[in-house]
């Protein structure tokens, strides 16, 4: 995945994700970057982690942390992974970079008993203001690229994501939102407007 994924992940409430991963879980981290997050899961949650990344430099960095990594393009459908092989499948801030996010989501809830997905919320009021008043695609510190060269090809809002989960018969177990310090409560009450990022625990409906 794009290097952006890793840096954004650091700004997320990592503790939320860590808390959502039970002790001793088998975890698959899609777009694992340099493996820093997987290494924390291993060290703090005693998780057995496997990473997936396409970038050779990321692969080397993750391997140097003693992790196992599979060099694979998530867009190829993750068919190398067997159903129910993992307790948790994590996709941190990479959903918007995928060619077919809906296929990836379906594969994730098939491969893992549970999945954790995080993404930047395009419904945030600043994005809306950028588009509404300037009439231009939003750019910010977290999204520094122009529309034509950004790896983020499939932005969505909190509402969009929840609607897709419903269409795909995917249950949302839990939601957490990230918002600026002043917007914490607003982020919780009106996530689609005030959350900069959202994190979801999901699973196959009836699973």
């Amino acid at each position: 995945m794009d290097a952006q994924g890793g840096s954004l992940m650091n700004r997320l409430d990592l503790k939320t994700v860590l808390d959502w991963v039970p002790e001793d879980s088998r975890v698959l981290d899609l777009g694992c970057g340099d493996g820093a997050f997987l290494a924390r899961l291993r060290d703090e949650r005693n998780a057995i982690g496997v990473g997936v990344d396409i970038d050779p430099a990321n692969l080397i960095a993750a391997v140097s942390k003693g992790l196992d990594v599979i060099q694979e393009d998530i867009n190829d459908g993750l068919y190398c992974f067997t159903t129910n092989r993992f307790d948790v499948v994590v996709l941190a801030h990479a959903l918007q970079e995928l060619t077919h996010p809906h296929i990836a989501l379906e594969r994730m809830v098939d491969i893992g008993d549970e999945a954790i997905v995080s993404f930047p919320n395009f419904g945030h009021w600043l994005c809306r203001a950028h588009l509404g008043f300037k009439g231009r695609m939003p750019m910010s510190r977290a999204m520094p690229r122009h529309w034509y060269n950004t790896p983020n090809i499939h932005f969505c809002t909190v509402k969009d994501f929840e609607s897709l989960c419903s269409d795909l018969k995917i249950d949302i177990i839990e939601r957490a939102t990230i918002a600026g310090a002043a917007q914490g409560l607003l982020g919780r009450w009106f996530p689609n407007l005030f959350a900069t990022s959202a994190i979801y625990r999901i699973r196959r409906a009836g699973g």
Partner: protein
Amino acid sequence: MTATFPTDSVGLVTPQVAHFDDPFTFVNGAVLQNHQLVYETYGELNSAGDNAVLICHALSGSHHAAGFHSANERRPGWWDLAIGPGKPIDTARLFVVCSNNLGCCDGSSGPNTINPSTGEAWGGRFPQPQVQDWVRSQKLLAEHLGISKWAAVIGGSLGGMQALQWTIDFPDWVGHCVALAAAPGLTAQNIAFNEIARHAILSDPDWCEGAYLSEGTLPARGVALARMVGHLTYMSADGMSDRFGRELREGGFSPDDNAEWVFQVESYLRHQGSRFSTQFDANTYVLMTRALDLFDLTGTQDGGLAAVLARAQAEFLVASFSSDWRFPPQRSIEIRDALMAAGKPVTYANIETDNGHDGFLLPNPSYEQLLKEWMRRVGPS
């Protein structure tokens, strides 16, 4: 004058010979009353015996994997790139063993050694080894050296297949396995290329039904042709274009030039073929390609490759090379997927390179760094 070698080289090495006086029975039932293996070691075996690493060589490789046999040796061992102090397979902390496979021609019992019952070279009468035979004979060597478990078994191409075979034949002997540019079995296309190579050798008039050593001939033309075909399949089209293009070595393209044309790529292949034909034993080439053909990790096992690899207790590094069409990335991916389905720890990389199948032998920073980082988990910490 004292010879000087690069500081990251294992330096001067001397091949050693292990003799085995108990009968060795091959998979096909043939028996050697006694045999010998020639091997090299680099680094020191520690007192706990938990730092031993076995290197398995490919089709035309030998026990000479690293270092120099003399100060005058022009080129070091075939995998000097990876083996040495501070290199990915770090001899400062690991004890590295590489043996010449049984049936090969660099000093281990093989077609070019003497059959004690006849007093003549074995020639075409040497038993047909299979990959399982090599694994068993290497286990005898390990015991001879006082090793009871390999921290890692490592190989590329045929050597990678051998490393995989080790993990299922003697699961508790292998802590880690590195399979580079390997495959779980040969395809029809692989076998076809091997057959062309064998046909080249067998149709050389100097082949003498494999008895050329006692007849005093050498099927050099056949072996050269076999090598040319083989070598071609180890390179990629892009790599060859970059290296040779349409450059001429002799002759010119001008209309009045009536010289014989020799393209650089022709000259290169002829050189490779001719050099190999005097160094490599024809019978060994036939036996080795046959052993490759017969290699099929899955066999008739129910549940396929994953069920076979379920036996393994090793952690795996599987790597393919993007432009390899002899054993393409897809074949490594089959191994990777089976290992994952069997719940085995595995790291997989597809190394970007124009070097084709030979990629596992050639310099490539990303490849060398990955191997180095992964190897840190091998042996005592």
